[in-house]
């Protein structure tokens, strides 16, 4: 659809005055060009403006202003460029300071003094090499991380995937041994720190959660345990040091996810202490943490909250979404209530009005129409 046609239709849908149209058109043109049209699901002829018109039409005329205001002032869209920026600053802001601190502690000096000592600098190189980075999904963008850190991080330290086979684990250790030899290091060929990297955590439950089985038993589930199982069956050669450290790093996180992970990881280690090769220390880190007031507040944003209930189809709920502990997805999975869209997909922690689409087969209520359609990974 031609941009002007979409704007004209939008004006008709919203009933704006000329002056209001002028202001909004300026913003809409800018935000479409700079961000929203880059949403992966959009195609030529059906991009943001057209999607917005269709989305607004599902609301009663009296509710459209509230819906539009949400998009205008509340929606947060993380573009591919912004995500790349978060990947770029992972090493200098997260990884390096920690290695520096560890080496500094070993030498009983301040972190800035590490660079003034040949020995400490050498230990820094060794410590950096003994760090392993594993990507929990494509969204972790460890390919970009590798490119951004050429010369600092070796290709043999970065793997996209956490469930590695024995051969792969073996290769990692072999390469580590070779590189430590080149550095004349006497340290063992094991990894001291393992980073598990992913793009986004809204609730933290994908990484680690409890579920009640059909037999009524509470079980721990999630990506962490899948990784630890893989680590456990890595083969005869030791992969990690005795006092190895786990760093769970997400490019983007919410406070809710941080709190959940810190609590759950500590708890699962206690519950299953004999079953897995546990780390001595762990840390939850992120490149960007949403502020506490980022999620929608049902009280202070009552008008939009009302829309999430009024324009809802229970047919969008699935078994996977129920694992969040809240059946109604109006405020997103696990009631995370996020107003968030990522350029490659909309997380289901986001309010459903933005991403949910009713299907003829499953529809049980209002016919929901998405603004940024979500590609479902789980049924």
């Amino acid at each position, binding site marked *: 659809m031609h941009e*002007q046609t979409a*704007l*004209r239709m939008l*004006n008709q849908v919203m009933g704006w005055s*000329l*002056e209001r*149209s*002028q202001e909004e*058109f300026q913003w809409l043109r800018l935000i479409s060009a700079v961000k929203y049209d880059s949403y992966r699901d959009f195609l030529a002829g059906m991009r943001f403006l057209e999607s917005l018109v269709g989305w607004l039409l599902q609301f009663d005329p009296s509710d459209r202003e509230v819906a539009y205001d949400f998009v205008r002032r509340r929606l947060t869209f993380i573009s591919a460029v912004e995500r790349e920026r978060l990947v770029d600053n992972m090493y200098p802001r997260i990884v390096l300071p920690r290695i520096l601190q560890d080496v500094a502690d070993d030498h009983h000096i301040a972190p800035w003094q590490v660079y003034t000592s040949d020995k400490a600098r050498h230990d820094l190189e060794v410590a950096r090499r003994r760090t392993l980075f594993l990507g929990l999904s494509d969204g972790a963008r460890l390919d970009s991380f590798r490119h951004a850190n050429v010369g600092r991080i070796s290709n043999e330290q970065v793997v996209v995937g956490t469930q590695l086979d024995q051969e792969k684990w073996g290769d990692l250790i072999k390469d580590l041994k070779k590189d430590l030899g080149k550095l004349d290091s006497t340290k063992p060929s094991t990894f001291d720190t393992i980073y598990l990297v992913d793009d986004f955590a809204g609730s933290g439950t994908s990484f680690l959660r409890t579920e009640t089985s059909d037999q009524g038993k509470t079980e721990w589930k999630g990506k962490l345990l899948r990784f630890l199982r893989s680590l456990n069956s890595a083969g005869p050669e030791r992969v990690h040091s005795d006092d190895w450290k786990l760093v769970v790093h997400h490019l983007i996180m919410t406070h809710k996810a941080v709190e959940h992970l810190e609590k759950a990881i500590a708890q699962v280690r206690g519950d299953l202490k004999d079953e897995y090769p546990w780390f001595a220390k762990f840390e939850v880190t992120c490149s960007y943490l949403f502020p506490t007031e980022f999620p929608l507040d049902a009280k202070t944003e009552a008008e939009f909250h009302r829309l999430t209930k009024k324009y809802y189809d229970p047919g969008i709920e699935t078994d996977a979404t129920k694992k969040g502990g809240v059946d109604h997805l109006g405020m997103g999975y696990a009631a995370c209530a996020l107003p968030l869209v990522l350029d490659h997909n909309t997380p289901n922690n986001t309010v459903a009005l933005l991403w949910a689409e009713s299907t003829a087969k499953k529809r049980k209520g209002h016919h929901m129409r998405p603004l940024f359609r979500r590609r479902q990974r789980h049924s």
Partner: protein
Amino acid sequence: MPNPFQQRASEFRRNEAEFLATLAPSLFRMTLDHFDDPQELLTKTVTFTAPPGSGKTTLSRFFQYATLKRLLEQVQRTSDETYEELRDLAIERGFVQDDRLIVCGARISFERDYRELSLIGYTPQRSHELMLSLVGARAVLAWRQAFIDAGIDCSQVRVIPTPLGEARLEHLGGTEFSDIVERATDVERIIYRLTASFIPPSEDELLQQLGGQFYPLLAIDGFAIPGQEEPVRPLLMIDDAHWADRDQHHALMTHLTLREVTIARWVLQRMEALAPNDMLIWGQSGATPVIDGIQRQRTVVDIRMTQASEDMRSGVRRKFRRAAAEIAARYMAHIPDLSRNGITSLAGLEVRPVATAKQIELAQRLPEVAAQNLGIPPVQVEQIRQRVYDFIGKQTDYNVETVAPAMVSILLHRQFKHTPQHSLFDAHKDESLAEEVVVEAGPEVAAGAQVHLWHKFAVPYLGGLDVVADLGMENVETFLQLAWQLVRLLETQEVIRGDRSTSLTVKQQHDALMKEGKRIMQEWSFPHAVSVRKLVNGMVDLCVKRSLEPNAPLGGGANAIGIEQTKFAQILDHPKLAEALRFGIAYNAFTLTPGRKAKGKLWTLLELGGPVIAACGLTTRRGGFVTTTLEALSDMISGATA
């Protein structure tokens, strides 16, 4: 092409054709038509001084050799009347003769690196010599570029020396232009390197490198170019001369006015280049009179582009309206979304406001209330009403339902002021013998009514292309900033309605102009902007109060303050005020107009800028002012007013 309304005309146009496509000849005529003899501007040093956005750089770019050459080609190639008008202007100004260019205009910008030369630590004389040598070198290089752009082989160009300049020319490189270019390149490189170095060389070392002063302006009289019998006269245009510090500026002007300089030379600068007395008391005293905004001395012509004398101002305003219409049309033709749909003019903007039913009702009560409060006999009220409707009936620009009753109310108050007051105890007052009605309805009363209606009932009145042009106050940039808001609305309207309408209601226009005026004022960020804002706010208060007096004594009202000219001559005794005025004038917050005759005295007026008028609901008609003193203005800045 980028949006021409939002870009400075002279900065973004990559080539001459694009630049020429946006020019309005009447804009240049506003400044140049005062000179019957074109040689006056080609034989003396001319300074063009004006606030930003007045068209100085556009003027200098137009008169560049390559631009005029391109113009002549465009005239041959197209049948665009504007190009022909521009060509005629170039002929009148002595740049073109028999379809050949006889003046080679080159423009250099007095960038900040010239100022660096005064900070190096050399003696003032040495740093001035360096500055003038750099100006000379860049002038030569600019002429070289002009020839290249015009497709002339520089190796074929010969320099014609001034009558006394042969020896100097030899020292500069000889009569072959390319040799002088080579020397100029060296000089520029040496001096530029100097400004970029951490530790400058000693003066002796520098002099050795340079081989002496490089003053081509004292040696060059003309250029003999291949294919043209008559030599071309060089014109050097030094733009942005306000970047020079005061001493440098003086040295530059002294150099340009030397007897040996025979080339044409123009200096273009913002008003802050002027000393306070030059700016504020200019033309008010001294042997050299100011006529039409020009002070002619023996060797210098000082043109203030936006300071027309009082009696010429209405003529200038009319010319600017025409220029504004031309510019708007040419710019709108370059906005694809508009030109594609035939929306290429602002002439269709409505001028007659439509009032709401409530506004009409409130306005129509005004005469009744006034008559009752003032005790005007009904027969007089009726006579006044008749006069108003007689006047309004012949007009098309006013909303009769609101303006007419407001005019009646004003005239009733005026009539009251002229009527002797009767005693309360005079029981035998015969209303049939009421005093004669001495008031008349006219455009100034209508203008006053509009301002009253706006402030009382928000009835809009700022509408129409002429009003937008008037709010520009003869400054192109201000006009474009305001006009753009209306063009945007037209663009949006076209998207919404798709009906190719070129019209906006007066309310839409007034609201947009007011909003833009407020935004411009909020974004003032020049030196002393804080003081200027306080001054403007104080002036606005005075003007609004006066304008809203029930009898509208000034007709449309006040949009200026006036100080007795003899008292204003003491302005330098108030240094803080002088600085605030200097920058307020330099950046279009207000304009200075000396020589206004009223009440048997001469006044210096400070007229509020167009954005202020639009933001605060004042009249666009010129002439009305509130008298005040320098002390009162100083108090506005210090916050001491009550």
